[in-house]
């Protein structure tokens, strides 16, 4: 593999698997690790990917749902449950009306 081919293969793997080298395919890893040791630019690109992934991962860790959201969900569920019961009752009445007289 030429240096340029190695650079392209490295970039492809970097975008496919991210910056965690342990997730890279076993058969490619030794050659790419050698390339990584030799190339300052490859190490820079790896660090850049790791830094970017770290930002992608930690961005909204503190996103908290509003404190009343659980209550709103439960309230809406009770409304829905009441509507379901009402619909079932209506269906039952319809069945009763159409049932043959005994």
């Amino acid at each position: 593999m030429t240096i340029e081919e190695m650079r392209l293969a490295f970039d492809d793997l970097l975008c496919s698997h991210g910056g965690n080298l342990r997730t890279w395919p076993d058969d490619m890893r030794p050659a790419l690790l050698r390339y990584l040791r030799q190339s300052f630019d490859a190490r820079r690109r790896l660090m850049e990917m790791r830094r970017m992934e770290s930002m992608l991962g930690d961005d909204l860790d503190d996103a908290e749902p509003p404190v009343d959201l659980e209550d709103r969900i439960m309230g809406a569920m009770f409304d829905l449950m009441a509507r379901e019961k009402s619909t079932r009752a209506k269906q039952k009445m319809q069945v009763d009306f159409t049932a043959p007289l005994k």
Partner: protein
Amino acid sequence: MLRVQQEDVEAYREITRRYLKRIYAVARRILPHDYDADDVVQDAFLRVWSHRDSWSPGAARFTTWLHRIVINRCIDYRRRPVDTSLEETEEPADERPDFDQAIFQKQLHEALNSARKRLPPGQQVALALYYNQGLTGAEVGAVMGLSQSAAEGLLKRARQQLRSVFAKSAIRARDAFDDH
């Protein structure tokens, strides 16, 4: 979930409490505003109740099923017609000339976030599930109804695009930092 299928309200409350924060974080990652996420999450949990009979233990893990519901709701929500003039209004910029390291990081973060929001919805969803929910490529595929390789393809394309923006933004931010 089996108890929810028997109309057990306490079981439903337990599920809501257990997954609310996690599901909210997914929605918040895909949608632009807190209030959008509120609406979608509430609607998604209502669908858990109204579609309780469609879940079966053999078909999918509950978390996969729940993620699928919220993600479909998020995608529907994003497709709705909106007043774009209002949606595109940005917060006023902070003009304090303070290019210290924190600002440098903040600029990078903002550039990355902005680029992330411009990605196709499928790529945004895959990123949120992988980086913010800690799912594997196979699990991302299961939630999105795709094969593992298709899900990994979405992640790859997202990384390619973001990486290019990230590298350019890093150079710009560093230059501004150095000039100061």
